[in-house]
């Protein structure tokens, strides 16, 4: 088959419109539940206030454990919570979207279209990621402009790069988790294991260095540990990319290996559901 430049461009444009179509659909859907939509926005504000009062508990004293990240607990925990939000949405949104589509009955209608499964699974979670980004941005803006968090010397480019790799790494876990839902519908061990271990050991609310040595070794098996370390160093200490490699490399390796593997597993899971006739079961 021969393609002209025009038809290729048109194909690309059509493909590029799919993420937007999912985003628009999910936004219209979410905005139609007006009360939930508004309370979600207010929720962001209350979360930030909670962190602020937590930080007052520690005062402005520089805590030795936090010294590598600038020493301020409020800034430390805000970055921790922001990135943990991405972990949470990555782990949950893919599987939740699949389960919603199974329960609502829209899954078959989507799977019979000319859109391939990897595109569907990735695009279906875009809205959750967009909302999380809005929330994280609000955290940071409140932190900086209202509560005096200092990111004056931040390496924003480096932070954005780490965020992108982190989202890819976390998403691969989420897609694996969606494969469980596709086959077993409920009961998803991956979410539980990674969610809880990351929260407890990954350094969300306290630095990994406060953990006993053997637990620190476990912590360094989790992608969130590297993501948080790199993000804090980029945002709070303004490290250039050349000094962020120890955090970026493990994340890149994790993302590079796990993303194709998880998409492959998900395709196998869909095939199994098609074989068992359970695509729409829940």
């Amino acid at each position, binding site marked *: 088959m021969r393609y002209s430049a025009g038809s290729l461009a048109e*194909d690309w444009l059509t493909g590029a419109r799919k993420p937007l179509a999912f985003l628009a659909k999910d936004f219209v859907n979410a905005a139609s539940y007006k009360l939930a939509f508004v309370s979600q926005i207010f929720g962001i504000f209350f979360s930030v206030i909670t962190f602020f009062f937590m930080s007052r508990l520690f005062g402005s004293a520089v805590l030795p454990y936090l010294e590598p990240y600038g020493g301020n607990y409020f800034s430390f925990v805000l970055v921790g919570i922001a990135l943990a939000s991405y972990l949470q949405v990555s782990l949950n949104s893919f599987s939740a979207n699949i389960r919603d589509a199974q329960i*609502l*009955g829209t899954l078959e209608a*989507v799977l*019979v279209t*000319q859109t391939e499964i990897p595109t569907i699974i990735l695009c279906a979670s875009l809205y959750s990621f967009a909302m999380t980004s809005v929330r994280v941005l609000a955290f940071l803006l409140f932190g900086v402009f209202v509560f005096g968090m200092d990111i004056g010397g931040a390496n924003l480019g480096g932070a954005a790069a780490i965020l992108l790799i982190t989202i890819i790494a976390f998403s691969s876990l989420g897609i694996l988790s969606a494969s469980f839902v596709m086959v077993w519908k409920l009961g998803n061990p991956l979410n539980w294991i990674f969610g809880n271990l990351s929260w407890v050991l990954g350094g969300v609310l306290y630095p990994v260095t406060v953990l006993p040595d053997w637990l620190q070794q476990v912590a360094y098996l989790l992608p969130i540990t590297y993501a948080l370390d790199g993000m804090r160093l980029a945002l709070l200490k303004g490290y250039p990319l050349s000094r962020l490699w120890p955090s970026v490399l493990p994340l890149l390796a994790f993302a590079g290996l796990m993303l194709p593997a998880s998409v492959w597993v998900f395709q196998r899971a869909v095939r199994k559901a098609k074989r068992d*006739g359970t695509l729409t079961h829940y």
Partner: protein
Amino acid sequence: MSLALEAAGLTKRFPQGRRFRDLLLHPLAKRLVTVLEDVSLEVHRGEVFGLLGPNGAGKTTLIKIFCTLVLPDAGVARVNGLDVRAQGKAIRRTIGYVIGDERSFYWRLTGRQNLRFFATLNNLSRLEADERIGELLRLTGLEAHADRMFKDYSTGMRQRLAVARGLLKEPDILFLDEPTKSLDPIASQDLRRFIRERLVEGDRRTVVLCTNNMREAADLCRRVAVLHGGRVRACGTLEEIQQTLAGRERYCLRLHGPHERSLGVLRGALPGDEIDAPPPDTASHDGLLFRVHLSPGRSDISHVVEALVRGNIRVQGCWREEIPLDEIFRRLVG
């Protein structure tokens, strides 16, 4: 190549849910239920083909196999010559699936927003999508309701929107899964008229209609396959099925004469053939109505009439009766 769909020896078994006890005692054993067994059929291009059968007959599973939503365990299924196992992507370009379940839409989006979303997933450009959606909304009579939320649609409107969605990519083959299910008789008739006039007579598409309504199939389809218990019980035109099924002709005889003697003469003239007689105490000025089922090549209605006349029984009327559709259905799946 004139075949739109082809199934040969198609078999599908689904695993059944197991209890904890079974899981503990026989963790590796699988309990399977057969949904399709050795199904073979062909659908020609441009024809309207009916898949008939009671609930649980395997109709929807068969459609889902052709739509690449379920994979067969054995046998071959081809759509426009493409294999459902290996060429799913190419198949999905050529088919439209009208899902009977109204929950397959996003309820809090308008009809137009729903169609626009599915048009994008079907690779229609914005311009193509807008044109096509406008045309389909007009065609399905939903133009005035296009910007209402789907949740506010009536059942009939939802089914029409499902048809519109199925037609978005102008498919070669359209699968309709019980499109008139839960519609009132008028809405049902309207939708049937739309299918007949626009899809069949107008567009000359290949249409596969899945239904458990024999009359609907007779109204719309040139050929049908009757499925029951996962097997094809009959396949062909309704006339062919009527003949194959019965293998007999049915005649009505209105007779003037005593009940017992009339029945005796009939039994004498038709040894071994089925006779439906009125109750013995039936009294009627118009005569008694008997139904006889003749085996072709063995009995002849003229011989029966001759025997009645010889037996001094006045034959007031004699006519051939078509086997009613419902009865055909009942006999095939009963």
